[in-house]
């Protein structure tokens, strides 16, 4: 950035360089805001009467939102032609994984307090937990193979094929959300609609 600024008096501002250098740090900072806000709430008695439930729901909401934001990268690239944005896709996927981990650890460590028998019973008996746990498990190999070295080792084609699992993960996450609710399905319906639009854009743009 300093180069761009010192060069400014002579040449016109090199916007593409600025955007390229700032894109990742800016997206990273924005992606940290939900957990920073949560920390601020926690330190200021802002989590309400049932803080454990709040932690689980809040992180679950953001995990699903980051799955959708990550899935929006390619459609945005296809529609706008802005290829640079593809560089933040991995980071957004890993943020989804990060919020999923917070969501799951709040359930295991706080709600169930490491009562493995009760957790296992939940996974077997409660279909929404079965679905949610399944969605989590599909994310683990994706997170492990997210490095550039792994892409190389697997081959781009295999890697892409494997990472298509993310569609099923996201659909499972929305089903997990719907099944958890008692009434008032507007929010998961909105997420489902967003996912449908994102998939439709891919379908239209990739198979003309």
């Amino acid at each position, binding site marked *: 950035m300093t180069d761009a600024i010192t060069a400014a008096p002579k040449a016109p501002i090199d916007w593409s360089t600025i955007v390229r250098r700032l894109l990742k740090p800016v997206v990273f900072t924005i992606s940290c805001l939900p957990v920073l806000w949560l920390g601020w709430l926690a330190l200021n008695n802002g989590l309400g009467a049932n803080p454990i439930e709040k*932690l689980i729901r809040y992180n679950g909401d953001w995990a699903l939102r980051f799955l959708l934001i990550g899935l929006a990268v390619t459609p945005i690239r296809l529609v706008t032609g802005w290829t640079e944005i593809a560089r933040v896709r991995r980071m957004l996927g890993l943020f989804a994984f990060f919020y999923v981990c917070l969501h799951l650890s709040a359930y295991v460590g*706080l709600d169930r307090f490491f009562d493995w028998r009760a957790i296992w019973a939940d996974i077997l008996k409660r279909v929404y937990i079965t679905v949610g746990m399944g969605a989590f498990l599909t994310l683990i190999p994706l997170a492990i193979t997210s490095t550039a070295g792994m892409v190389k080792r697997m081959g781009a084609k295999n890697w892409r094929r494997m990472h298509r699992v993310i569609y099923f993960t996201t659909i499972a996450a929305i089903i997990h959300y719907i099944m958890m609710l008692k009434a008032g399905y507007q929010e998961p319906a909105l997420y489902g609609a967003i996912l449908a639009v994102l998939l439709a854009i891919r379908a239209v743009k990739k198979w003309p």
Partner: protein
Amino acid sequence: MLIRVKQKSDVASHEITPQSVYLNRRAMIAGTGLIAGSALLAAPRAHAALQKGPGVNTPLANVKEGYRKLGEKDAITPYDAASSYNNFYEFGTGKDDPAANSGKFKPLPWSVKVDGLCNNGGTFALEDFIKPHQLEERIYRLRCVEAWSMVIPWIGVSLADVVKRSDPQGSAKYLQFETVVRPEEMSGQRSKFILPWPYVEGLRMDEAMNPLAILVTGMYGEAVPNQNGAPLRLMAPWKYGFKNIKSIVRISFVEKQPENTWKVTNPGEYGFYANVNPKVDHPRWTQASERRIGDFLRRDTLMFNGYEEEVASLYAGMDLKRNY
């Protein structure tokens, strides 16, 4: 004076959280780095004297000390928690929604219609409806179907007395309650996708006549806040929270079992009786344990929410797995 009788439903000493764990609960929670300093965890111990109000709503006068049999671990839930964490879908489906969205609701003036199979029905102003009866403070456990619970000092009148005054006819087998419909004041009612309005609940006549059932007009020494069901709500403490219908405008004596809202909405998960029962799970979550609001660890749920002695006879011979 409070005489504590040992009951079958009491928590056995081996089930009680070790004192060291209990005393360290805040350190444990603070150790997560996320819930540090939650003031709601500091709950006062339950005591026998009438509760002093928090000074938020109109204080209620001429209140007598009523039922207050509590277990050793039943500390009264702080007012802030009881009035900020609510299920009242008429104001939205989030737990914070009722407190946030009920400011516009006008609980007074209020009238209650009593109709159906009774000889002394009519439409009553709330004051006239309550006046013939003795206001009592009753401290009850409240167990939500979502597996959280509180201990709340309610103020209300005996439902059995109200039933008797209405002079039911012999054919009246059930009591049906209805919540007010005011979409202009209740934002949740503007959505058709939440629940069918009005909210309807019901009790079998012998359940309504049980001494534990009350019609509530206050809590914590004051008029009941909007978000908790002002100005008149039901409290049958051996049933899950959703049975305890809020902002009641109509009480009908009927012959057929009322079609209560949650049962109509999702018959596979909610029945008519909705008795607290640790042995009958909700299809999507266990009912064997619950989190008392303010506690870190879960505790075992008691049969009939700990009121087995008072209400079990109502259901003698009934298959509670089927009649959930």
